């Protein structure tokens, strides 16, 4: 091994803000690539995590398509539901990702990452996008499954790319939500409880399974403030061609993600100390 480097100037200050911004793209790229390595090492997980959404599509989707009980306009219920299930699967993965960060804390992995020249916000952003990568891979499996089940999907590559971005940004938000809760409750047990307690309400208080106008009014309000609804709306518009407000959806999701990153970064120190 070669000799140590030349000495740095004694007054060298690399602030967190400057360093964070400068290294951000590289850190995000790094953690995303690392996530792909993880996926490659554990492909069975991709399959096991696809079972539940597959059952939703097969059992719930096929059954309700048959009975025509949910008014979804011209499109079959199975088609209507498929983007909702993609979003659901991404949601579960993202929430679980936050729980995993507590594991990393408990094992000292997080401590070690925080001792590298990586600003907390860059670490959080990197991890958030890694959750997005994982969610996008999983959503792709559901996309293929939907196609096999005969859902009429739009194969326009621009739409598909936009749909991937929607899933990534949404998963980044939900993983930060989970990290934020982790930073507040601090233990894995409590986070598991809260994680389970919020994922189902987030899913049901959204437009994932049925049109908002069919809901009781209080649920409509919840659905309007639920980022998952905007994700589903965007995915439906992109993949099925239903009317949607993509600009609004994208704005809400990006704003939610930025707020999530800010909150999770602010609480990261608390998690690591």
């Amino acid at each position: 091994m070669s000799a140590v480097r030349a000495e740095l100037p004694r007054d060298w200050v690399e602030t967190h803000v400057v360093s964070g911004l400068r290294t951000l793209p590289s850190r995000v790229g790094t953690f995303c690539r690392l996530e792909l390595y993880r996926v490659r090492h554990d492909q069975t997980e991709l399959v096991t995590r696809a079972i539940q959404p597959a059952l939703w599509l097969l059992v719930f989707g096929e059954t309700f398509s048959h009975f025509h009980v949910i008014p979804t306009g011209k499109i079959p219920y199975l088609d209507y539901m498929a983007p909702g299930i993609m979003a659901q699967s991404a949601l579960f993965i993202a929430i679980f990702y936050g729980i995993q960060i507590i594991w990393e804390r408990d094992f000292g992995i997080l401590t070690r990452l925080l001792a590298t020249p990586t600003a907390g916000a860059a670490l959080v952003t990197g991890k958030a996008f890694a959750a997005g990568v994982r969610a996008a891979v999983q959503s792709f499996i559901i996309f293929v499954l939907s196609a096999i089940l005969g859902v009429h999907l739009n194969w326009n590559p621009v739409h598909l790319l936009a749909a991937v971005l929607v899933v990534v940004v949404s998963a980044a938000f939900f993983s930060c939500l989970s990290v934020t809760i982790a930073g507040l409750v601090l233990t894995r047990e409590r986070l598991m409880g809260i994680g389970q307690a919020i994922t189902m309400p987030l899913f049901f208080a959204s437009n994932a399974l049925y049109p908002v106008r069919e809901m009781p009014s209080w649920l409509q309000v919840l659905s309007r403030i639920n980022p998952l609804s905007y994700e589903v709306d965007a995915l439906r518009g992109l993949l099925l061609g239903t009317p949607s407000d993509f600009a609004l959806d994208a704005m809400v999701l990006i704003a939610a993600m930025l707020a999530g990153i800010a909150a999770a970064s602010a609480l990261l120190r608390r998690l690591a100390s």
Partner: protein
Amino acid sequence: MSVQAVECAELRHRFGSVQALDGVSFEVREGEIFGLLGPNGAGKTTTMKVLVTLLRPQAGSARVFGLDVRRQTMAVRRWIGYLPQQLSADGALSGYENVWLFTRLYDVPRRERQSRIAEVLSLMDLQEAAGRLVKTYSGGMVRRLELAQALVNRPRLLILDEPSIGLDPVARSDLWDRVRRLRSETGMTVLLTTHYMDEAEQLCERVALMHRGRIAAIGAPEELKAGLGPETTMDQVFRHYTGSQIDQVGSIRDVRSARRTAARLG
């Protein structure tokens, strides 16, 4: 006068009702192997966390090669290779991927990345195992991998928190041989903690005995022993300054975390 590798002055830090650091002052000279010894709860890990900028001390100052740990956080981190007390490599990734991650986190330039990874893996004799998932590694291999990760940055200061805990005697002496060789080949400064007095005595040019957040004594092992009379052993020095038995197994917390690590690594 050349700058010291580490200078701590009157460091104080309190966690709730526990005064973890109660005025810690010491210096580590460039190029030496320095041991921080003391019973569990003495404040060794807390001191190291201050030096690696993971913890901002409530009072006092600390410098690493003249850089202020409070103000020059990122610069300090670039000088240090740090092994925390718990096994910290990622079991779900291969050895190669674990090292690759660190070349990225320390911004090793792209054209040097592959050669740097190969260099540190071969230095730690892990080339053969590099493609395997780390959860299949033995404890000694994980420690070597963590050392490899810590070296990608070519640090000037290596901070090792209980690196030999949980290792069998062969793996332990192998680890210390590597640390000694690294120091003699690169001139790197090493700051370490250990529970084993024989290791500290063989390895360290100087040691500090810590007790209840304070430095109770500091000096070369021979000096400290001679100070208490002829035929004194290092164990006796430890007992004299810290008033406690050497706790070979570690605290409940350490044991629990070691078990968890073992479970994770499968």
